[in-house]
């Protein structure tokens, strides 16, 4: 059938079925593609991002880092896979072991349990941000001196947790240490050394990091 033979649209309507579908499609697609969707949640207007990638800025160790992430990406994946900050380790990936611990607004968090999109605008301090260059902090050096590590997967998380713990508890008791560091696991079983680190770095102890490696009274779990 020739094109000229095709049935003509009703000239009275001014709108063909094909035109209607085109207009409807554009009307739906334009807001989705170019305009953020805002929903009302908990009494606030919340911008909905995704499911595709969205630009996200993170303040990590005093530097503003920007990349595009899908909203489902965790802070741990963002740090390790995109920003090459591999100090935080992925071990359990379910908020149990603490190997991925970083400081978020000064508080230790499991980064495998925090979405990168939720960490926007918050101060993030990873273990790389605790020191500059190859220098070790006193707590890091104490982990070496007390042999408080073996395979090393849990060590960065423990260093971050211990550093924060000692800031909050300058002169802890062994029970304080036991409770304060209970959010981190070491499957190699170096807990004695880790507790020795915390005790040696307390205000009442020598800050030189020198120790005979023994844990004081009540220091064993």
């Amino acid at each position, binding site marked *: 059938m020739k094109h000229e033979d095709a049935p003509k649209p009703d000239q009275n309507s001014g709108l063909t079925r094909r035109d209607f579908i085109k207009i409807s499609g554009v009307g739906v697609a334009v807001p989705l593609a170019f305009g953020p969707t805002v929903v009302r949640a908990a009494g606030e207007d919340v911008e909905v991002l995704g499911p595709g990638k969205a630009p996200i800025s993170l303040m990590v160790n005093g530097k503003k880092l920007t990349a595009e992430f899908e909203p489902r990406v965790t802070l741990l994946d963002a740090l390790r896979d995109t920003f090459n900050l591999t100090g935080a380790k992925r071990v359990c990936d379910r908020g149990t072991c603490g190997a991925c611990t970083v400081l978020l607004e000064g508080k230790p968090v499991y980064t495998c349990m925090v979405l990168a999109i939720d960490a926007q605008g918050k101060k993030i301090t990873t273990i790389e941000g605790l020191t500059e260059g190859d220098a070790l902090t006193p707590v*890091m050096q104490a982990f070496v001196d007390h042999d408080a590590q073996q395979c*090393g997967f849990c060590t960065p998380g423990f260093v971050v947790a211990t550093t924060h713990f000692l800031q909050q508890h300058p002169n802890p008791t062994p029970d304080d240490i036991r409770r304060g560091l209970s959010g981190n696991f070491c499957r190699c079983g170096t807990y004695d050394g880790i507790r020795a680190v915390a005790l040696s770095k307390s205000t009442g102890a020598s800050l030189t990091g020198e120790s005979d490696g023994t844990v004081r009274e009540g220091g064993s779990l």
Partner: protein
Amino acid sequence: MSEYQWPNPATRPLLGKKISRVDGPIKSSGRAK
């Protein structure tokens, strides 16, 4: 068979000595990958 005599503890190069792990610093600083 003669009885083996261990060296004097003060002159032993390894046994009884405190030896730090060579990979300790990079592990505790998070630089180990």
